């Protein structure tokens, strides 16, 4: 783990209009993450975890503040620039897997590679090796609806890592899985992220997951607090 400040969020604010009321989700929020660090983001349902991940990925924009990823301040980018930034630098793992139902497992893994414009001769091999890593080397031709929940999430992990993103965002990756499968998925994610030296933010409401984290933060009332009482990896 290198100790450079890799990602920094400075005085980030985000609120939503709900009928006649304004609901503040993030309030002058600050966060710094070092390269290769694994952060677990805790918070109850509706606390704003997904909002925060959406801001870090450039899917959404803050009302004010800076979101620096590497040398780029996402808050200053246009929608198109944020999309291009995301396809190159961010890998996603969602709670509901969000695989593209009309592409096979292998094609789902290939998609971010192709979007990034990687024209490697061994593209298929690369996708295949990531599928192997998650234990689905023989299911490359299967469509998502033929895979179990755990298998789908493993494909999603392979997809998130395949194009070597700067940052991986995982939003409740075990939320839709049973305990055993969830545990296996976390092991795979942990292993691959660390082997590949990736930075990851893992949002969850499950405190058991904290055991794999380098650092745990909790989102409460629009601000982040460090959580120290957990068993580090």
């Amino acid at each position: 783990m290198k100790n450079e400040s890799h990602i920094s969020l400075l005085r980030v604010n985000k609120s939503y209009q709900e009928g006649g009321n304004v609901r503040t989700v993030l309030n002058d929020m600050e966060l710094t993450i070092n390269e290769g660090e694994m952060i677990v983001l805790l918070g109850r349902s509706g606390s704003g975890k997904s909002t925060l991940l959406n801001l870090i990925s450039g899917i959404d924009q803050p009302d004010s503040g800076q979101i620096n990823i590497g040398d780029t301040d996402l808050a200053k980018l246009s929608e198109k620039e944020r999309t291009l930034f995301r396809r190159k630098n961010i890998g996603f793992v969602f709670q509901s897997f969000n695989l593209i139902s009309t592409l096979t497992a292998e094609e789902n893994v290939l998609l971010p590679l192709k979007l990034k414009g990687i024209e490697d001769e061994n593209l298929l091999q690369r996708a295949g090796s990531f599928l192997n890593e998650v234990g689905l080397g023989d299911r490359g031709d299967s469509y998502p609806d033929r895979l179990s929940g755990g298998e789908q999430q493993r494909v999603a992990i392979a997809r998130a890592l395949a194009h070597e993103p700067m940052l991986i965002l995982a939003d409740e990756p075990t939320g839709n899985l049973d305990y055993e499968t969830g545990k296996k998925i976390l092991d795979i994610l942990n292993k691959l992220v660390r082997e590949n030296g990736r930075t990851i933010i893992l949002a969850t409401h499950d405190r058991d997951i904290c055991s794999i984290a380098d650092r745990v933060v909790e989102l409460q009332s629009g601000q982040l607090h460090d959580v120290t009482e957990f068993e580090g990896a």
Partner: protein
Amino acid sequence: MSSENKDLIWLSSLRFLLRHPWHFGLSILGVALGVAVVVSIDLSNSSAEKAFELSTEAVTGKATHQIQGVSEDLDESVYRSVRIEAGIRSSAPVIEGYGRIQGLNRTVQVLGVDPIAEAPFRDFASQEAGIDLSKFIGGRNTGLISQNTAQEMEVEVGDTLVTEVAGVYHDIQLIGLIEVENERSRQALESILLIDINTAQRLFGMQGQLSRIDLIIDENQEGTIKQRIESVLPEGAAIVRSESRTETVAQMTRAFEFNLQALSMLALLVGMFLIYNTMTFSVVQRRPLIGRMRALGVSRNEILFTILKEALFIGFLGTLLGIIAGIFLAQVLVQLVTQSINDLYFVLSVQQLSIDPYSITKGLLLGLGATLIAAYWPAREASKAEVTTVLKRSSNESKILSRIFPLAGAGILVGSIGGLILLVPNGGIAAGYSSLLFMIVGFSLIVPALIVGMAKLFRPIFGKVNGMIGKMAVRGVVTELSRTSVAIAALVVAVAATVGVGVMVDSFRTTVVSWLGSQLQADVYIQPPSSVARTADSELAPDLIEVLKATKGVEQAGSVRSVQIRTNFGTDNLVAIDHGDAAEEAYQLKVGENAFWEVYDTEPIVMISEVYAYRKNIGLNDTLIIQTDAGKVPFTIKAINFDYASDIGTVTMNRKIYNRYFNDDAISGLALYAEEDVDVNELVNRLRVRADGMQEVFIRSNRGLREASIEIFDRTFTVTVVLRLLAIIVAFMGVLSALMALQLERSRELAVLRANGMTPGQLWNYVISQTGVMGLMAGILSVPLGILMAYILVYVINLRSFGWTLQFMITPDVLLQAVGLAFIAALLAGVYPSKKMAEANPADALRNE
């Protein structure tokens, strides 16, 4: 191709289509039907135009100019003067008319020529073509037809062709066959009977007369040669350019053809709405998929282009299928179009469909263009959506609910723009159709608000009739408004188009029936058979007229004479009437004073039809200069009458005035009034017996003629009725596809209901109730839009195309048909999804994504 080289976004899109084969197939069908209608009408029109062009080319030959007489005839002495006194050798006399040869199922153009003068004009009619002169001009009735026609009729040289001209049968001996090298000329000559000029004079009763004299005038010497010719021409005769005559004839059908094209475009517009519906539906259905792609970094433009590419793919397949179907459909439509042209304008025989590359290209561009335009908005909406919101649909539903009033406001604005377009002076037909388009789009935007309103009304009713399921069915339409409103709007437009055209045809028919009621005052009408159903271009034999007038039971007689004249506006149709006092009752004046009838048999005044006034842009008290045998005479327009017999327009004058200026005693039609207490049917039989063996004529009672006229009217509207039927099929397919897709899409929700204890029977009830509600809503909403469309078709487009005033007639049949069509199609649309879901294991549907 390996995955490595594939465009994965496109591949995903393509697989999405293939995974929804019903949806995919029906959207292709939507485009195909629209394109098929446009292509078939276009091909029919262009085939008719080509046939006209060919026949004109064959008959006009290489003539650059023609000498025409005052009305239809020209004294043959003029030909001698032109050839000898003026020394114009490139001149040829022509007699032109129509006839029917027994055994050939079409009207032929009878061309009387002098083969000796023909060489520079028409190769096939000249001495050099190998015509046996001694037989051809030998004084007997002889003639030639093309080799193809002879084969078609299975006749050989030496056989006799029994030919009917103006109700009189003549035996014509076939003395040779016209042989030509190229295909174009061969087609052109398939409907021509070539005879000697003297034979033609006998056949047409034109002794000493010609139809015209053809000329070839060198462009460089046009001025001097024309001067030389004009010096020997009698009063009233004139030299006109050949093409100007052709142009006049071609102009007649322009509005007719344009309207057919416009109606076919209406079918394409309906098709466009269906494509819009399909694409919107497809996009809404794929929101989560699009959201995932966007989250992974697929840009807005990539989404936009992929969906447009997909639309283009559907458009291409649909267009291709549509063009093929259009060619087949055109084979049927060309016969109907030709029939209408024959009934309304001039004799035309289309032997084969000419597949014009221009029509095909137009169909291709329209199909692809319409698909792209229709798909653009859904594609744009998909690409513009925020990633955070596309991942969940509920936000979209609540968004559209909050938008219904702004949408309705925009709809009223767009509709008002449509209304304002109608106010543009001299807007023409194109403005009429643009206005129609704006109003359709405007109405569609109001549809979501109307659905919400109707649902409030329907809910308690359906609740009472069908309990909780009934209420749920209505509620479901509102909760899924983003999908249901587009589908219902598309159906409303499709069904309204059938209402619009239906009401237009009904209005037309009612007007014509009521007009015929007043126009036909006499008890019996006698006319020679005419080559064009709505005109009287033949003459009654004078001895027959005397015999008929003198028949027992006839109290008095009236007559009409119909001729082509030259006026300061070109060649027009003049009708000279001799109806005595009955004329005042028969002719309904639109503008004019009653005093007209007091002086119309003494002063040089005329009455023009409203169509004529509209086409020539003239009115009461304007002057019409008519070329008469006494030279150019100014006639004052003193009345404008309603006349639905001709869309070209008619000038009417009293027979006494006609006789004063024209050397013509002929009569084109006779009207007889029966004595009191005489049975009209018996009188008709008596007249038929007396006319037997003389000229073949139609002797019809007032009622008989009225029925025959309505029959012709209905025949000329067959094309429109067929187009309406096609629009109904498009609408039916639209209702079926949109609602079926909607229900199939809800498999998961239906599975939840099944899992919660809904029986297969209750599921059937639920699905069919919901499609029924939507069909009913679409049917009801199509009525006001359909009436609005009919209003524009009747009062704007018809008026601007033809100048007719029509009574607006809405019959309940058309409206019930529309609601019924939408409702039945909607019920049918529910059958397959209900069956599928009732039979399926709910667990499977719940497991599937």
